[in-house]
């Protein structure tokens, strides 16, 4: 755990001095990824660099697992913390192996252990060790270099990582990919991470919590959902953007929002007359037809006209199905794109587990807003 207690940093002295970090207090819990968010000059990078003493603290305390960082030897302190920067900073004179091995070598690991660790990390980041170990940084693409930057920061398996816009130097498509991969890696490794970014999407996507800074002050520290749904002030509201509700949708999963009522589900083998009765009895507009648990299409009063045929022969196919694990942003976007009000939801085995509609999404958002009003 990292504890920031009344941390301040003042550059210069006298009337020309600049307060870069102003009395900041919050904690990063074990296994949490906290994104430091704000525009440039808000103090987020300074706070990161204060943590491993690349810059000296003016006042306050930073504790790592209860121990004041000032009580460490600064070189030892940095060796025990992973560090990755936007410019990546791979050493061009060292191979990929040599770059990843930097901290383990400083810590005096033997070569066998380093070699195993390098292979393990390369595999974890989906780079073939046979291909990449002995390459030089300049022979790699930007995205590959960024992965090596991450591998280097994880090399000695530190509990704590400091990452300063680690995915900032690559194009959006590659960035998305490496973000997804890093989320998977983090889910497994459960490191405590301070992650600086100026990108609200990245902050929301990566962060267990977000710390938002403005002119050196911590203005809000909360989960992404709360920050999007309930920004603490006008500054944050502007920063997260007027589309914050839409951004929030990407944090909510279909599984927790979908309608699991099975009243409008029928088996494909029943006759159309029977299906018609169900529709009329329950006053439904359509029925979802399944076969062996999997959705095959839907029927409406219009399609059911001819009597006594198996409904599976009368179905209209779905334009698409959506997975339980998808987020509401994707669900909504699909509804708009295909001009449909309702999408069947399937689980990882392809079985129909529910449906999701505009109304379901709307209800979820209204609930969230009101929840936060109550808890605040």
């Amino acid at each position, binding site marked *: 755990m990292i504890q920031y207690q009344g941390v301040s940093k003042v550059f210069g002295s006298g009337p020309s001095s600049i307060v870069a970090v102003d009395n900041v207090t919050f904690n990063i819990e074990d296994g949490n990824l906290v994104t430091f968010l704000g525009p440039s000059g808000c103090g987020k990078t300074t706070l990161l660099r204060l943590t491993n003493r690349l810059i000296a603290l003016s006042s306050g305390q930073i504790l790592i697992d209860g121990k004041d960082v000032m009580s460490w030897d600064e070189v030892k302190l*940095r060796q025990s913390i992973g560090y990755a920067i936007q410019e990546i900073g791979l*050493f061009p004179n060292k191979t990929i192996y040599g770059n990843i091995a930097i901290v383990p070598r400083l810590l005096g690991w033997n070569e066998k252990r380093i070699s195993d660790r390098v292979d393990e990390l390369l595999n974890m980041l989906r780079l073939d060790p046979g291909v990449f170990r002995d390459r030089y940084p*300049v022979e790699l693409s930007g995205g590959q270099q960024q992965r090596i930057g991450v591998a280097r920061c994880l090399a000695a398996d530190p509990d704590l990582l400091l990452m300063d816009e680690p995915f900032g130097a690559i194009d959006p498509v590659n960035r998305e990919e490496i973000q997804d991969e890093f989320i998977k890696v983090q889910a497994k490794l459960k490191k405590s991470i301070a992650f600086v970014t100026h990108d609200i999407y990245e902050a929301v996507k990566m962060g267990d919590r977000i710390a938002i800074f403005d002119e050196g002050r911590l203005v809000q520290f909360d989960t992404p959902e709360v920050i999007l749904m309930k920004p603490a002030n006008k500054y944050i509201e502007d920063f997260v953007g007027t589309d914050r509700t839409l951004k929030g949708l990407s944090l909510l999963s279909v599984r927790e929002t979908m309608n699991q009522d099975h009243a409008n589900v029928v088996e494909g083998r029943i006759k159309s007359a029977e299906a018609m009765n169900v529709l009329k009895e329950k006053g439904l507009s359509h029925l979802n037809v399944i076969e062996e648990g999997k959705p095959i299409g839907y029927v409406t009063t219009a399609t059911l006209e001819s009597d006594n045929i198996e409904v599976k022969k009368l179905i209209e196919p779905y334009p698409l199905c959506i997975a339980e694990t998808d987020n509401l942003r994707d669900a909504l976007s699909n509804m708009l794109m295909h001009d449909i009000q309702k999408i069947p939801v399937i689980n990882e085995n392809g079985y129909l587990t529910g449906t999701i509609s505009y109304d379901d999404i709307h209800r979820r958002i209204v609930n969230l807003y009101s929840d936060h009003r109550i808890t605040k």
Partner: protein
Amino acid sequence: MRILKFVQENASDCWGLGLEHIWIVAISVFLAALIAIPLGVYISHNERVAKQVISAANILMTIPSIALFGLMLPILSIIGHGLGKVPAVIALVLYSQLPLIRNTYVGIKNVPPELVEAGKGLGMSSWTRLRELEIPLAISVIIAGLRTATVMNIGIAAIAAYIGAGGLGVFIQQGIARVYSEMIIAGALLVALLAIFADAGMAFLERALTPKGIRIARRIGK
């Protein structure tokens, strides 16, 4: 043709003086590197003294070599070395300072700051950073300085014959005194030949000591 004949007839003198010339230059470049490279590294991390040190080396460079020999004569006479190889080597060491200090300084200053930052953040001490990052990245520029110093010293060492240091300058000095043009030209050509070989040798060294990753980077133009 007559020059070739002169060289043939005086082959053993040519060898002897040539080796003496090489010896003077080699020892002075070696001593100069011993002083200038650490100094260059030091000032690259202490910006405040960098300007002064480089200015001082610059001033040294502007003193004509013959004047420097003259200036050292009374001083070194105190220890009985007013003439000969000692003042010659000292002068060459002084002249080598500027290219060596400046190249070392520039080479290290040109290491991208984000690499230094990364090294620091990973927990490398300033000593480790120097050894594993700054020197390897600056080495080709440092060797280029050594190359300049060597070639320059081969030329200046020829003048040192006037203070009795020996070397190929002896041909030139005596040739002038005896108005013996073949001797002058032979001396000049041999000095030039030596400089060309030294330059080629240093170019090879420069290439050999440049880390492979940097060579690849240059080849693919990054």
